[in-house]
């Protein structure tokens, strides 16, 4: 309780606030400035300034092993929504069970989501009884066997089964601090919550109570910012492991390898704020990519000299990549990584590559004109589904086309244009 004698100045300084994310603000500001045709010379004669947006968007990256990887933040609201041109408007019927699927939103039917298999063929349509609010996203399980809405204030996360029917959830609705993500197996949800000031991890089946919750001894100072910055990078119940990452623009990056069954921290690394751009774990929690800050466009100096891929078990080096490469996600079979070869930025085309983890060689490369907005990892394989949007589309659910890139370097486009689910 606040008393008249309390030091209001200190209370105000420490007041937790829903602060805008500086990285997102920076990305939008720089992208918008560029759109306004400000010449690089006006920005200090350094054409690399565009790269900054990347550092920002790296921070927005919600890599989650096999989860949907969303790259874009809230768009600059100055640009009109582009008109989607769906490849089809038909209802493909109930999606098949036991087939890994990629879901996109049907732009002409709110609440409808079309499913494609990993060869790019349409396999089904689910229809939510009530379309989601525009500020919510539908996050599919890695194999499409379930769905969960994104986190939103005052809106408990909703769960749906593989056909889009709501699942009762007796856990999340009662705990506003709960954060949950799909586990790599697509069957479990991994949970992270705060209990009396300490973080707890656990996992459960969708719609069921958590099996057990275990405290993780993470330094409380990482939670004093009021900023969403601590999250699962991977969660692997079958291996009893999870990797938690704290990554926030301008602050030291950290990761923890955690044992799910008791919350024990098996390893913990902290990096100076200017060293890394992002930290991403493989879906099976065995590898961790420490992407150099150079990959996010930082020009401040102090960036790691390479993007390193290390073993989570002992911290040993597995592969060293060019520091301009930022790891977005690992293939589930740990044969390849998807990287950005130029900084990620809102409103800027994304340059991508697929790198072999065995040889470090480039298997596939794209210098296209589109912006990567999200990516899915193929369950059990080495392919990625890339959600690509027009660089000028800054809506919450941009029009996207989906390109499936396989570990052998071949690719196939899903026919049509849809919306980010």
């Amino acid at each position, binding site marked *: 309780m606040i008393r008249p004698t309390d030091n209001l100045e200190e209370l105000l300084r420490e007041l937790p606030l829903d602060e805008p994310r500086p990285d997102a*603000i920076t990305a939008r500001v720089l992208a918008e400035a560029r759109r306004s045709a400000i010449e690089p010379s006006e920005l200090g004669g350094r054409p690399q300034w565009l790269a900054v947006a990347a550092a920002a968007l790296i921070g927005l990256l919600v890599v989650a092993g096999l989860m949907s990887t969303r790259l874009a933040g809230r768009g600059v609201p100055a640009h009109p929504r582009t008109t989607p041109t769906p490849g089809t408007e038909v209802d493909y019927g109930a999606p098949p069970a036991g087939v890994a699927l990629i879901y996109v939103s049907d732009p002409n039917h709110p609440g409808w989501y079309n499913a494609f298999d990993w060869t790019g063929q349409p396999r089904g349509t689910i229809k939510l009884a009530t379309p989601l609010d525009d500020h919510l996203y539908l996050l599919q399980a890695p194999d499409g066997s379930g769905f969960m809405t994104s986190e*939103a204030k005052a809106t408990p996360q909703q769960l749906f089964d593989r056909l889009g029917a709501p699942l009762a959830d007796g856990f999340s609705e009662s705990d506003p601090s709960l954060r949950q993500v799909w586990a790599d197996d697509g069957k479990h949800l991994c949970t992270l919550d705060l209990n009396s000031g300490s973080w707890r991890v656990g996992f459960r089946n969708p719609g069921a109570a958590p099996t057990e919750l275990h405290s993780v001894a993470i330094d409380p100072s990482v939670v004093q*910012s009021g900023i969403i910055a601590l999250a699962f990078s991977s969660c692997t119940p079958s291996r009893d492991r999870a990797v938690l990452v704290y990554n926030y623009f301008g602050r030291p990056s950290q990761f923890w390898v955690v044992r799910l069954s008791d919350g024990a921290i098996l390893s913990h690394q902290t990096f100076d704020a200017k060293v890394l751009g992002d930290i991403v774990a493989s879906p099976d929690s065995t590898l961790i990519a420490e992407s150099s800050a150079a990959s996010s466009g930082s020009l401040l100096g102090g960036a790691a000299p390479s993007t390193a891929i290390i073993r989570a078990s002992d911290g040993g080096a597995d592969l060293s990549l060019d520091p301009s490469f930022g790891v977005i996600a690992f293939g589930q079979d740990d044969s390849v990584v998807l990287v950005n070869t130029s900084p990620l930025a809102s409103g800027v085309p994304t340059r991508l590559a697929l790198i072999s983890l065995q040889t470090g060689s480039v298997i596939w490369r794209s210098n296209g004109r589109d912006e990567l907005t999200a990516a899915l990892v193929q369950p059990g394989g080495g392919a990625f589904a890339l959600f690509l949007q027009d660089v000028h589309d800054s809506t919450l659910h941009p029009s996207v086309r989906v390109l499936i890139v396989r570990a052998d370097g071949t690719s196939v486009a899903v026919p049509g244009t849809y919306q980010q689910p």
Partner: protein
Amino acid sequence: MSTAATDADLLGQTLPVTAERFCEQYAPAVCRFAAMAARSPSEAEDIAQEAMLHAVRRLNKFDPIRGEIGAWLWRIVANVARDHQRAERRRFALWTRLSRVREATAESIESIAIDHIDNQRLLASLRGLEPRDRTLLALRFGADLDLRAVGQALGMSDAAAGRAVLRALDKLRSHLEVNP
């Protein structure tokens, strides 16, 4: 979040400073300021983005001979906040009448955890203050500016800024006592 150090760092570079460096240096403080000065997360986003964009677009016009870059920025930020607060007061009045005030922005898991009852009271009282008082407190305690910098941002002397901040604190304390 020391502005003096920030200015010294930036002025130590060859001007004009790059937009990226400028944003990296100042965006965190501007965001913190905006979160405290605004009445909603969405408004805070708008203030922070608009202020930074405004500054970046004029960065090549900044003249170090006329003052520190921090002071220049915070004047821009204060002006943008003032303009937003005017518009926001009109919107807020409408929302209140319609009883549809709703925040759609995701709430951070961390902010929920930390003494949320007291903090919510403090935040509610802060948001109940007049816009100018919120701006004063946000510059002083959100952006962590000293009184001289607060005065420069708002076009007043150091002493006047100090008195204004104290008055704003008194109003906040009164608000907390009236609404325990």
